[in-house]
């Protein structure tokens, strides 16, 4: 476990038509850590995630996204926002399908890691929202990718489930994976993330461990720290047209 970044986002701009969503953004993701990306709605969180994953290409000629981790068949695992699964397949079948493309842990073990082992034979449409999210998290870990990217993994979950998700995330990091996660759950971020990057209006405006940010803002909690630090940009900016 070194401190070399597993993935480097360097001076990347992403525009959708006339609208610039990411503006010369740089972010280096150190290996083996849990990095959380936080920011208000419309700040470009999801676009950043998608750029890291490769779903979206940066504007040509501007910046680069470089993966520098181990050379494996599946370097990056991804859980998109609002992930859906095909109905008619069981949880185990779904993971088995994705597992066809890589070597690695069996579906049963993947389910155990997220705590879904009892739901293995249940069809995905019969899973509750929370269980589906867990399944989605399990999918992101298929093939044991060195970098796991989760876009709001706790969205729509009750506090207990959310906690469970972040526990799983921490366990992933303990096994050696790097996790990039975006979330609104600041309390959970505070507890489980090693590193926090704050994004606003398409730029990284703050970066540091939760403790460092608390100290910087002289606030007792990360939540208050962030509110203090984003004083200048309290208004919710929506990237795009009005």
């Amino acid at each position: 476990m070194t401190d070399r970044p597993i993935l480097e986002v360097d001076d990347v701009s992403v525009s959708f038509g006339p609208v610039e969503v990411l503006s010369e953004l740089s972010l280096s993701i150190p290996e083996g850590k849990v990095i959380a990306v936080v920011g208000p709605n419309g700040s470009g969180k999801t676009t950043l995630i998608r750029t890291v994953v490769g779903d979206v290409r940066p504007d040509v000629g501007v910046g680069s996204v470089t993966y520098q981790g181990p050379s494996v068949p599946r370097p990056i695992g991804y859980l998109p926002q609002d992930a859906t699964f095909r109905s008619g397949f069981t949880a185990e079948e779904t993971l088995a399908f994705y597992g066809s493309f890589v070597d690695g842990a069996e579906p049963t073990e993947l389910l155990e890691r997220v705590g879904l082992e009892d739901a293995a034979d249940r069809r995905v449409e019969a899973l509750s929202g929370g269980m589906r999210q867990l399944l989605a998290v399990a999918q992101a870990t298929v093939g044991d990718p060195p970098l796991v990217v989760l876009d709001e993994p706790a969205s729509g979950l009750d506090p207990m489930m959310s906690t469970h998700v972040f526990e799983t995330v921490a366990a992933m990091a303990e096994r050696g994976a790097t996790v990039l996660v975006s979330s609104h759950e600041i309390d959970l971020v505070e507890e489980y993330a090693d590193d926090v990057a704050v994004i606003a209006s398409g730029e990284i405006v703050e970066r540091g461990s939760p403790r460092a940010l608390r100290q910087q803002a002289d606030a007792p909690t990360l939540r208050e720290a962030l509110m203090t630090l984003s004083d200048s940009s309290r208004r919710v900016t929506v990237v795009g047209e009005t």
Partner: protein
Amino acid sequence: MSRAAAFVAIARRELDTIVRTRSYLALTVGLAVILSGIVTGSDALQGGYVPTAVDLLLPLELLVPTVSVVLGYRAFTGENDDLSILRTYPVSTVLLTVGVFVGRAIALVVILGVPLATVAVLVAVTPGVESAVFVTHSGVDSPALFVRFATLTVVFGVVVLSLALAVAALARRSRTALALALLVFLGVVAGGDLLVLSRLGGPGTTVDLASLMAVSPNSAYRGLVFETVIGVATADSGFANPALNVVGLAGWLAVGLLTTGIALAARSWNPQFVATWKAWLRNRLPTTEN
């Protein structure tokens, strides 16, 4: 895991998706009922395999594109869209395209094959023209000709399926997919022939009609049926140029698969691409202010 295993996994998932969707079972049964109904209402069953094929030709020209389009036009949209996830796996666009195509094609073989087999059984169990007075024979009529007919029908369906997949790959939303699917359907069922008609000129002009018709997918299908099924029984030929028809159908298959592959690969550029073009158009078109 090997590419072969990945391909099988993708194809298998498509097949399972179809199999586990109740409405496709209903489609198969419904198709069997319709086809059986068509031939039972007429005298074709008694006539044998070739008259039955003749009776089914026109309805199938409409039904097969319908089934193929229905089977394909949502292959990559809505719930079936996990492309952003798949992209993180070592699955090439080619593998994905061909895998989805093969999986759905197999499903199509079953959805078309079961009703056609049902009709074949009906023909087999229907006594032909019988007479207590005269000896009867079946003429040039054999199950082999009906198997040819069924094969050509499935091939036609598979070609249209590839076009439907292209629609699914191009469209990001179900509404768009539906509109495009309708376009493809009309093009296959009517457009090709209209194009041929427009090129015909007056009755006095000479046109290589057989070659022209190979361009239209349903005419190519129809021409092959005439040439290899109906024509054999009546020893007529010249209905169509079978080699060209095969080339025409193969061409459309290639168009369908290539478009699918390119559209899938381009999806990651898509939103920017579309948005850029939308903005460009908006700048060009006159606004109310100007």
